[in-house]
């Protein structure tokens, strides 16, 4: 048996992101017979990253399906199954491989409800690790948040903590629309405290609502997924110098909770976005454009800026890789520049 659980007095436990995802899927499989999981190695291998550990043993071949290495084919099969009344969870071993199937995600899943003027819905979840990992180099490190976030008809979700993973995955599975669920491999093993309320079987996090992870008055940091950890670390360092950062965890990429960001900027007057993906046409670019166009612009005391991955394919050598993605010092630097300190 796998999960690392330390029972604290208050009924809180420590749960890793991996276990949170596993438990969420387990509970949703139990709750609704139409839910099933398919993907490479999800059944007998227990999942390439062990996220689906134990599920095949419990639910069997009908509900946990190992596929051949044919993304376009099995993603299409998953979408067809969703059209005909099932509720598939389609796992991509990493979202890099989803590029092979991206036509099925966009043209068959995302657009169908609109093209059919409401006759045909597609209740499907596409999930898997997204973005950079460690030492996996260029073809296995791309962040797809911006690409999927671009498309109407999709919901795109990017959890950070175990609580996020649990609540958002449950919401995604119960959602009657195509949801792209972007996990992060480096976060799978990270434990988070989880309250009793979050552990309950019907704990859901609404898709489309951001969360303030840390309150602050001087500057707003907006981020998603693993970069939240770096933002919080940067905020801790800055606090020692008297700079209080408000850290907003987007939780959902699409629909984007612009209101939460605007409300924060109206308080702090400064904005820095932080993402692991490439800068051009990225998440930060969209947030900045929206702020420019919205009511919060007049509250900015300095131009809003983005901290992003470097605009290059991901290199392999550790030192190069480390310098390809935002580090804590990059966030601190950008905050200080924005605040002009």
């Amino acid at each position, binding site marked *: 048996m796998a999960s690392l659980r330390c029972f604290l007095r208050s009924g809180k436990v420590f749960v890793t992101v991996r276990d949170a995802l596993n438990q969420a899927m387990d509970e949703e499989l139990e709750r609704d017979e139409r839910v099933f999981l398919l993907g490479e190695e999800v059944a007998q291998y227990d999942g390439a990253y062990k996220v689906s550990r134990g599920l095949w043993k419990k639910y069997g071949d009908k509900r946990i399906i190992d596929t051949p290495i044919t993304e376009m*084919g*099995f993603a299409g099969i998953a979408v*067809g199954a969703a*059209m005909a009344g*099932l509720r598939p969870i389609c796992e991509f071993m990493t979202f890099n491989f989803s590029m092979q199937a991206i036509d099925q995600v966009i043209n068959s899943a995302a657009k169908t409800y609109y093209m059919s003027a409401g006759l045909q819905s597609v209740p499907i979840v596409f999930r898997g690790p997204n973005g950079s990992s460690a030492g996996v180099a260029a073809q296995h490190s791309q962040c797809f948040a911006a690409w999927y976030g671009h498309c109407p*008809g999709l919901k795109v979700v990017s959890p950070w903590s175990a609580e996020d993973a649990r609540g958002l995955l449950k919401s995604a599975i119960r959602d009657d629309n195509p949801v792209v669920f972007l996990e992060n491999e480096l976060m799978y093993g990270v434990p988070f405290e989880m309250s009793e309320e979050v552990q309950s079987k019907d704990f859901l996090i609404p898709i489309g609502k951001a969360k303030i992870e840390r309150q602050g008055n001087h500057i707003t940091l907006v981020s998603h997924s693993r970069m939240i950890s770096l933002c919080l670390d940067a905020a801790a360092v800055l606090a020692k110098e008297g700079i209080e950062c408000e850290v907003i965890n987007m939780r959902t990429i699409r629909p984007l909770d612009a209101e939460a960001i605007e409300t924060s900027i109206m308080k702090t007057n400064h904005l820095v976005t932080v993402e692991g993906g490439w800068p051009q046409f990225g998440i930060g670019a969209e947030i900045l454009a929206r702020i420019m166009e919205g009511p919060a612009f007049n509250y900015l005391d300095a131009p809003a800026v983005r901290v992003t991955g470097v605009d290059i394919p991901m290199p392999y050598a550790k030192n190069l890789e480390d310098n390809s993605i935002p580090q804590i010092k990059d966030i601190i630097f950008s905050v200080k520049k924005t605040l002009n300190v």
Partner: protein
Amino acid sequence: MTLQSLNRFFFYKLYSVVVSARTYADFTPQATFDIKKCDLHKLEEGPPLQAVLSREEGLQYYRTMQTMRRMELKADQLYKQKIIRGFCHLYDGQEACAVGIEAGINLSDHLITAYRAHGYTLTRGGTVREIMAELTGRRGGIAKGKGGSMHMYTKHFYGGNGIVGAQVPLGAGVALACKYLGKNELCVCLYGDGAANQGQIFETYNMASLWKLPCIFICENNKYGMGTSVERAAASTDYYKRGDFIPGLRVDGMDVLCVREATKLAAEHCRSGKGPILMELQTYRYHGHSMSDPGVSYRTRDEIQEVRSKSDPISMLKDRMLSNNMASVEELKEIDVEVRKEIEDAAQFATTDPEPPLDDLCNHIFYNDPPMEVRGTNPWTKLKSVS
């Protein structure tokens, strides 16, 4: 009128009624026809070499095929008048496929095809009215005017798909749901000779076979993928064999009875849990690939004319029925008149029904969701979207 002429009048009226009654009573209620043998691949037995056709069935197939034909020709007309725009891929010539397939399955089964889909929308329960109004982009269209020619849907009919080949994995997914839900339903999954070379189709063959999905793969081979003949596109044009480990049969797609019998065999195969099966229907389209293709740069007018005169599916059925006294010329003419009227009415509706209301623009993004805002073309325009 004199009494004598009145008498004569009533006599003739009575006579014609008596004659007609006698003629109707004389119609052959059903007949057996020889149908072409199918080439088989990894199949022990093919469909029977004879098909029984009842008078009712014959009249129904005739009516449906004629409706389909007239509907497509009307669409051609409307397109040339620029009332239909964008893509329009017409099905005339291939009617025996759609009608024969539907005759071999139930409405409770499922079907998916590519973009040459108007015929299937009809056989799967769509009306001519709502199909034509969809082509003209009106609010009375089957997809409220938001889908167009390639995106029409009905119950257990999943379109209408614009991306060549993408519908094949989708169809296998529908078949997976059929098996999963245990309702003894199957999915007919159609694609063309052009799509037959798509990689995702081979991926689908593999999974459908591995998991024994109740899927009838059907290749409608009309000899041309857009402007490319099958010889120029495929290293092997034996499309019924391309499923390799999947049993297959090659069928005369211009004969509605041949298609029906083959479909029945295929359906039986799927329903008995044997897994997928592949049918190649050899058929022909009279029009070019789409309305923007005259269809004569890559094939000769002689070829088209030859098929029209020797293998037209509607003529074939008509000849069979007439030569076996299963219907009269007048009766079939009457059906033609009724069909023409139905098409005219539908075209009238399709050209007069208003376009969708502008406030429908942003609806139907998500299902079962609360209303939301959608950004318009500029930051000050916020549009409303409901499910």
